[in-house]
């Protein structure tokens, strides 16, 4: 797993929590969500038809709550930490608890629900500020959440003490906790509370909007969802409050009530949607690898791809050892390291907002690492291939040289000695014959005949090793000689202005020699053509064509295979066309 580490101002990216620790196993998650859904269902059933519940219909609430639970499930599935999922579930249950207060007359118990009913406010503030990282990274955010929690608990407690009835319009019996019962003060407190809550909501919306406005494109791509959802929720809340407090027409009030019911789910749904969006961004990290495959060393194009995939026009790659200055200490910038910290492959300089999406950074980092590794491996492979090709060429050259030397040694050594031995034997036999030693003379002559056939065999062997004519006369005479010795009538046409390099000459010679040997052995041909020509660039084209039975299979015989290897070694290519019954054309192309 490639690691992404940030340096400079940015703190290191959180690792994904290992399964089982921060993340719940999915059956347990389903169980928890199912239980929460059951609670919502019960609360809707209990609240429905009770006075105070809007029109006595709990169904819109139930739909909103179940949607909230679905969002919680999505968030659990997508978020790196379990916290936001729990918060959304808590939020939904707390919302649904409000319904209980209409349906359950539990005497001493129901007023306590007021504490639960203030929790959704805290949850919303937390969700809006913690998105998308799933935790409060700034001290300001933490203080804001603590302030909201403290205020709401205080408000709930004071309300409990002041209001003899809670909720005011639920029509329950007097609250046993209203020790300081003062309806007038309670009513005033209610109005102040609405104002304070409105202020809180405006502050949070302001903070979220401001951050979004100041962030780079990277953050905006993801973070716009939350401010939008939060502001819509806020507006609906304000409108709803106004509608409750003033004498709006009944129809309008009902519309606002319904909107308010559904606005419950806005923020959790926005949270889940944002996570889905981040996931699709991560999927685009694959684009990086595709870009990498189409370029060889186009690091600039990688740069462009990283910008696109991160959605951050300011992002760029900084290569280790490069002279490019970095803005790592600039406000809002961050550096992430691809590769190990002690052996970095490349740094990504990017908007600090992207630290909220560590999985995206990790995906991009992993892709970059693959691309860099791939580039390095490709380069190594090319280098190895070059070396292998060079060494293969050297082997062919060495083999050629060895054959040349062996032929030279045979020619200058053994062959000449055998000639002179034969000559001496002849002189001896002539002498013996002159002396009348006919038996000895005949014996010597038999030996001379045996020696003569040995000399012939040795000559054929030496010729096969390396034709003397090739070295002296080049391909024209040497191939003509090959054609002359072929038992099939062979026309040889060598159209070369100048002699190719020795290695190329010998390759052409062995190619034609092997092909003609095959023509003799297998083709049953009556005619054969050998053509050697050069194109304008000096590349050699060699073709051996016969009118025989065809059906030559390069895979079957070792001869053609060996030939292909040798042609390959000098950088040429070979083709065999041999349809059964249509003769055989073996051609070869050698580079200039």
């Amino acid at each position: 797993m490639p690691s992404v580490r940030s340096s400079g101002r940015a703190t290191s990216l959180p690792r994904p929590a290992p399964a089982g620790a921060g993340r719940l196993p999915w059956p347990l998650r389903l169980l928890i969500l199912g239980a929460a859904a059951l609670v919502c269902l019960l609360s809707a059933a209990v609240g429905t038809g009770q006075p105070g519940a809007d029109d006595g219909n709990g169904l819109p609430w139930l739909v909103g709550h179940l949607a909230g639970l679905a969002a919680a499930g999505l968030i659990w599935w997508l978020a790196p930490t379990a916290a936001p999922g729990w918060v959304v579930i808590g939020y939904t249950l707390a919302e649904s608890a409000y319904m209980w207060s209409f349906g359950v007359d539990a005497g001493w118990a129901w007023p306590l629900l007021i504490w639960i009913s203030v929790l959704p406010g805290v949850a919303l503030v937390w969700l809006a500020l913690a998105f998308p990282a799933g935790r409060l990274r700034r001290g300001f955010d933490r203080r804001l959440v603590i302030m909201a929690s403290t205020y709401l608990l205080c408000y709930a407690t004071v309300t409990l003490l002041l209001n003899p009835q809670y909720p005011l319009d639920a029509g329950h019996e007097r609250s046993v906790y209203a020790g300081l019962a003062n309806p007038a003060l309670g009513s005033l407190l209610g109005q102040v509370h609405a104002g304070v809550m409105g202020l809180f909501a405006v502050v949070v919306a302001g903070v979220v909007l401001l951050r979004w406005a100041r962030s780079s494109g990277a953050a905006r791509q993801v973070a716009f969802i939350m401010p939008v959802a939060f502001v819509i929720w806020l507006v609906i809340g304000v409108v709803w409050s106004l509608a409750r407090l003033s004498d709006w027409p009944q129809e309008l009030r009902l519309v606002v009530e319904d909107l308010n019911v559904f606005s419950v789910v806005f923020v959790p749904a926005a949270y889940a949607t944002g996570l889905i969006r981040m996931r699709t961004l991560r999927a685009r990290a694959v684009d990086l690898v595709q870009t990498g495959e189409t370029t060889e060393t186009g690091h600039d194009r990688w740069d462009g791809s990283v910008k696109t995939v991160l959605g951050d026009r300011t992002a760029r790659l900084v290569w280790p050892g490069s002279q490019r200055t970095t803005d790592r200490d600039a406000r809002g910038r961050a550096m992430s390291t691809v590769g190990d910290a002690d052996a970095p492959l490349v740094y990504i300089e990017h908007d600090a907002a992207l630290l909220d999406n560590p999985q995206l950074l990790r995906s991009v980092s992993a892709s970059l690492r693959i691309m860099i590794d791939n580039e390095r491996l490709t380069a190594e492979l090319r280098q190895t291939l070059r070396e292998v090709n060079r060494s293969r060429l050297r082997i062919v050259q060495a083999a050629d040289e060895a054959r040349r030397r062996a032929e030279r040694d045979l020619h200058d050594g053994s062959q000449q000695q055998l000639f002179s031995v034969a000559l001496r034997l002849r002189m001896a036999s002539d002498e013996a014959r002159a002396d009348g030693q006919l038996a000895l003379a005949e014996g010597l002559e038999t030996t001379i005949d045996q020696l003569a056939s040995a000399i012939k065999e040795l000559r054929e062997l030496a010729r096969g090793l390396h034709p003397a004519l090739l070295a002296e006369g080049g391909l024209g005479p040497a191939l003509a000689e090959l054609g002359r010795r072929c038992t099939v009538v062979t026309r040889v046409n060598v159209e070369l202005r100048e002699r190719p390099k020795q290695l190329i000459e010998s390759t052409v010679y062995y190619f034609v020699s092997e092909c003609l040997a095959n023509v003799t052995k297998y083709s049953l041909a009556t005619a054969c053509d050998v053509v050697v020509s050069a194109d304008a660039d000096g590349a050699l084209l060699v073709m051996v064509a016969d009118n025989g039975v065809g059906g030559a299979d390069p895979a079957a015989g070792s001869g053609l295979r060996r030939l292909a290897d040798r042609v390959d070694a000098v950088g040429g290519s070979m083709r065999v066309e041999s349809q059964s019954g249509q003769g055989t054309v073996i051609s070869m192309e050698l580079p200039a």
Partner: protein
Amino acid sequence: MASVESRVLRVAVADDAVLLREGVVQILRANGHQVVASLGSAAELVEQIEGGLAVDAVVLDIRMPPTHTDEGIVALEQLRAGGFTAGVLLLSTYAVPAYAVRALGSGSGTGYLLKDRVSDSGTLVAAVERVAAGESVVDPEVVSLLVAERTRSDGLDHLTEREREVLTLMAEGRSNSGIARALVVSLKTVEAHISRILAKLGLEDSPADHRRVLAVVRWLEHTDA
């Protein structure tokens, strides 16, 4: 085999293979000829002859230092260009028709023989004597190679069996009388065969034996065009 000339020849031998060279020297001397130079390279031979060494014939190995390719033929062409008219017998390890054509092309009194022949009784000496007399000599193996190939490609069907025999002997550089002796026919018969063969092959008859041999060998080697 009857020797063409019975006079004592002054012969120079050039071959880098010492043992073989000494053998050739011995066999020439044993046949009554005088070896005036026994040399290890073609360059030394050219130097000696251009320096005024008088010879009737030269026995010259083709493949010698420094390049080990065609030094002998190069030396031959160099000598002929300098007006050298004595006989030159080239010795070759391999039967290479192209070499034979090249050698014959340098002028009359030239021969091309495989080294195998040095152990044939009298062949080498006879060849030296023939080139010294201005005749041409082509090794029978080279000729049979050429005739076999020509037979495969052109068929040579328009020649009779006897004509083909005569053609072969012509290509080996035999004179009319030599052919007559070899085939045990009359000189007139041989001359009739030869004129028919040359007509069939589209070759002009030449009063000089050497030119006729060259034409025939070139035709066989496909270099007549």
